[in-house]
């Protein structure tokens, strides 16, 4: 078997060890929610995740471990979500919803492509230092909440769950170029929020 850590957890899950289920939920719930959000939207996501968990438990004993546990769980979630959709697939909207602190747009550059408003040095230079600012955390949450469901999910799956871009494409059935556009624009919005906070000290 290629996934030894998964095998250890699976063995515990198969004897119904409650602590193992807590670990499983704590580790994967966030990624599963992001997948469900992207496909069915926020209204139905919770139900899809619930159904996906039940499908996971039903099929746990038969899972062969040919993929990682994470890939298997997310595939079940994506399939559960697609079944719910029954072909009413929403269009992939690349149109950007404005974010509270904007982005790094054309207005930051001269006509010749040089910086007009170049980034300043930030006061904080580690993630830990930035995250000690409670107001910044709230501010960031607001920016994340302003993203479309699909864009927010792509960002979450890439940055927080560490999925590869092609895994995201396969799960969400979005083309690689669209995933790249969504991800890049989302990152610039997050950048703009941190930059705004660093420059003004407020949200």
């Amino acid at each position: 078997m290629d996934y030894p850590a998964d095998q250890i957890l699976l063995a515990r899950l198969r004897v119904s060890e409650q602590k193992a289920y807590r670990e499983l939920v704590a580790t994967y719930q966030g990624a599963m929610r992001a997948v469900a959000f992207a496909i069915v939207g926020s209204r139905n996501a919770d139900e899809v995740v619930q159904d996906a968990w039940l499908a996971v438990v039903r099929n746990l004993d038969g899972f062969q471990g040919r993929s990682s546990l994470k890939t298997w769980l997310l595939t079940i979630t994506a399939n559960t979500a697609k079944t719910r959709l029954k072909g009413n697939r929403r269009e992939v909207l690349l149109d950007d919803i404005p974010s509270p602190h904007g982005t790094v747009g054309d207005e930051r550059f001269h006509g010749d492509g040089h910086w007009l408003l170049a980034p300043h040095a930030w006061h904080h230079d580690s993630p830990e230092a930035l995250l000690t600012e409670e107001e910044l955390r709230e501010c960031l949450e607001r920016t994340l909440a302003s993203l479309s469901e699909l864009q927010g999910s792509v960002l979450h799956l890439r940055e927080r769950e560490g999925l590869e871009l092609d895994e995201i494409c396969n799960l969400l059935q979005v083309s690689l170029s669209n995933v790249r556009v969504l991800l890049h624009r989302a990152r610039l919005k997050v950048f703009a929020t941190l930059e705004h906070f660093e420059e003004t000290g407020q949200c």
Partner: protein
Amino acid sequence: MLSCKELVAHSSEYIDGQMKLRRRLSVRMHLAMCVNCRRFIKQLRLSQAVLRRLPRGQSAESDELAAKLAEVHRQQH
């Protein structure tokens, strides 16, 4: 030569390591000469790290869910 604006437009591909060698080299050359873009890339990576470390909401709900799932599994046997 790559402009600052172009560099920013391709910065995600660069930090994801998804760039073809040739363009990667032109980004590296630009960064070697441009302090503003070096700072931009550094701060973009910092933003990435901040997201990664944003605390996850651990709720009583997930404990409840875990208990329910363990119970469902037990009943299957």
